[in-house]
């Protein structure tokens, strides 16, 4: 456990002090403040506007933080060969991967907390309720979705050979993750067996990010914020993370440097 935490701390410090990530956080804060300006145009729908924009900014910047943080890691490991020094130390490869995962999601969490505080302030300034439970729950589940995506990112990093290819795969997974439910719905009645099989494969293998997407369901009256649904999605998220990291460990164990 200590080795895992040592790696997590190292990854977190390295990411958090990186100038590029600091600029991203500043950008993220500006984006949230920008929603204040946009809401002036909104006339009577200001609270909705700042909340919508703020929640979107939180998720997008959390995703970009994940991408940047992992890009820095992968670049250093592959191009600057930092991984060789670690792999000859008395640390299991699985411990290193888990420590890396914890370091990356902690970096994302720090950024997310800063953004959340700013969005709450902006909502309050516009007369809304900054402690709105639905808003806070949707932020929590956005973070959960990013944690699932981070596990996928770690798995992809064990099979990708270059940083650009990894980035492209991850963006693809992000978009596809939101579309799987819709694709399954589209093919359900009319498509051929081959297409249904392909869609089913994508649906089960790619993380179903739409389940964690509560931010566009704030007006939902059907019980999306009920404990039953939330617990089921949380369980799915935890299992997906475990399976992805385990698969990554299997692949990483056989990797040569």
């Amino acid at each position, binding site marked *: 456990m*200590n*080795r895992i*935490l*040592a*790696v997590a*701390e*190292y990854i977190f*410090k*390295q990411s958090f*002090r*990186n*100038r590029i990530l600091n600029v991203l956080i500043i950008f993220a804060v500006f984006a949230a403040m920008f929603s204040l300006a946009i809401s002036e145009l909104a006339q009577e729908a200001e609270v909705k506007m700042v909340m919508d924009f703020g929640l979107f900014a939180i998720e997008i910047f959390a995703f970009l933080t994940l991408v940047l943080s992992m890009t820095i890691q992968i670049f*250093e490991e592959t191009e*600057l*060969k*930092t991984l*060789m*020094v*670690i*792999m*000859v*130390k*008395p*640390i*299991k490869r699985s411990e290193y991967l888990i420590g890396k995962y914890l370091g990356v999601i902690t970096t994302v969490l720090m950024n997310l907390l800063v953004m959340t505080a700013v969005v709450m302030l902006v909502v309050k300034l516009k007369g809304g309720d900054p402690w709105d439970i639905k808003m806070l729950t949707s932020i929590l589940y956005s973070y959960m979705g990013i944690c699932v995506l981070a596990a996928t990112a770690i798995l992809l990093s064990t099979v990708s*050979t270059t940083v650009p290819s990894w980035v492209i795969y991850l963006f693809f997974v992000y978009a596809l993750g939101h579309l799987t439910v819709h694709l399954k719905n589209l093919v359900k009645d009319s498509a051929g067996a081959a297409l249904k099989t392909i869609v089913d494969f994508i649906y089960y293998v790619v993380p179903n990010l739409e389940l964690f997407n509560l931010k566009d369901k704030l007006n939902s009256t059907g019980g999306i914020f009920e404990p039953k649904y939330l617990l089921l999605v949380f369980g799915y998220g935890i299992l997906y993370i475990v399976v992805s990291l385990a698969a990554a460990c299997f692949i990483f164990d056989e990797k*040569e*440097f």
Partner: protein
Amino acid sequence: MENVIEVKGATKVYKALDFWNKERTTAIENVDLFVAKGEVFGLLGLNGAGKTTLMKVLLGLLKPTSGEVSILGGSADDIAIRARIGYLPELPYFPKYLKVREVMEYFAGIFGIPGNIRKQKIESILEIVKLSKKSEAGVKELSKGMQGRLGLAQAILNDPDLLFLDEPMSGLDPLGYKETRDIILDLKKRGKTIFFNSHILSEVEKVCDRVAVMHASHIKSVETLAEALKKHGSLEKYFVGIVEGNS
């Protein structure tokens, strides 16, 4: 004398990265080698001879295609063995936004050095590599030579029984050569075994007990330094003779 490194018939063939390309590259072939405990062993060879590949095979970073490899009586896959080795790669890199002390704390955490002695241990190692005044400096503030010394510091942090150094003097100035040489000799005096690659024959002459020449994936010659110097007059003549004799 007990052997800490034993290699029998080790071969490493790299698969082509290109899916359509079926060519294979043989990096090392039928390598037989042993290194005794307490020895300083120098591996010489031209660029592309296979020296780094052999070192990586010994460290478990690469799996041999065939043959047997043993270090400290076991395999580098064993964590207990890895706790007793140190490794300095060629051109070590450390994150520039961390401080020297933080880098050492990271490695100390991996080695499981207890918290109560960690600070003291790090300070003593930084003292040995003459970086104690730079412990709070950021890595980006270090010169190339200092980064090399930081690399050496992380390699000896766990007081390893077996140390692998890949071009330890690469990029150093003459003072750097002397300081690194002194550290190697000090480690030797303490009974450590050192296996290193180098192109700087003058330094190899000053520290090694035995040397090997690797050429075109094969070990062409292994001799004690004394024998090599006796037969050929200088290490350069020995090396050039082996390489040109086989070209």
